């Protein structure tokens, strides 16, 4: 009985987190684009994924990422743009889940790596689609930009998770 209650709680929590990620994705798409660097995004949804990796478990985090990619693709950016987000999200989740298991790595570093890998995944997918190796210069720039945005998201997530851990709410 308690297990059923916990799994229902988990479903409700995942629904909440997915809705949060979709709203964050929509908000960050309303920010003005940086002229000259197309395709740069703040990656606010990574903050929610960091929360899921650290306070829930990794399969849940992967499920949340898949949900977010499919739903935000259907609602906002279009099916053809989904594959770039899928490549970026998958690569970033793999990096973040592997790095979070390494002892001694701070949450901010994991988020930085996740942000960088997200951008890298998107550019690699673009290079694959366009069959051009010339985007490798752009990949280098986006890796650094991803590190910076990951740093910001990681700092915010760090503060939030620290407070959530010390509160009485049980996520497991």
């Amino acid at each position: 009985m308690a297990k059923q209650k916990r799994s229902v709680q988990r479903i409700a929590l995942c629904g909440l987190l997915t809705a949060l990620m979709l709203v964050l994705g929509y908000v960050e798409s309303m920010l003005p684009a940086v002229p000259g660097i197309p395709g740069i995004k703040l990656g606010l949804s990574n903050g929610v994924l960091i929360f899921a990796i650290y306070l829930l478990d990794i399969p849940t985090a992967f499920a949340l990422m898949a949900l977010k990619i499919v739903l935000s693709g259907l609602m906002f950016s279009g099916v053809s743009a989904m594959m770039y987000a899928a490549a970026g999200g998958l690569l970033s989740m793999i990096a973040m889940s592997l790095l979070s298991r390494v002892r001694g790595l701070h949450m901010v570093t994991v988020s930085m790596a996740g942000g960088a890998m997200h951008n890298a995944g998107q550019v690699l997918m673009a290079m694959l689609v366009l069959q051009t190796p010339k985007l490798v210069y752009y990949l280098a720039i986006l890796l650094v930009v991803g590190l910076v945005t990951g740093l910001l998201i990681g700092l915010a997530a760090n503060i939030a998770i620290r407070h959530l851990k010390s509160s009485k709410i049980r996520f497991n």
Partner: protein
Amino acid sequence: MSRKPFDNKNIWVIGVILALAALLLFIGVRGIRTTVPPLPELFTPTPEPVATAALAAETSVPAVETTAEPQATVEPAAGYILLTVQNSSSYWLPLPAEGEFTFPIVQPAADGSDKQLENYLHITPTGMYMESANCDSQDCVHQGEVTLENKDTRILYNMIICLPNQVVVELYTPDEIMAMMSAQ
């Protein structure tokens, strides 16, 4: 907290990513010049009312463009634009000596629907920019202008890319083309 706020491993991870970025930057700046696109062919304009009207009315595009037989050009244009559509077709367009015009790139949609994929490339004697497009993200329009002067310092180097419509336009100088052809 009991542990140190910033362990060495963190610096390692960040350092690896930064080193990877630096390596890719290096590869990009050096290696970009050795990729070889197909040899230049003379562009023969397909019948397109908008384009030919614009061409006839506004520019003094060299006669090379309207003849069907290849001729050796005595003096090369200031630059050449390589237009690649859906990575299967590529066309070379020389920059006009004077005047500017908008070059339409219209493709049928991949899923067979009626809506066409349109990109309008504005070409000037010194460079080019994407004037408008009907893709959703409009990234190509915001990519700015590629000119012979600024192409080495741009983030996207000499390219303007429309990812949803799979259109890539690059601006090459004649020296780069000679280097590519001799490297082939």
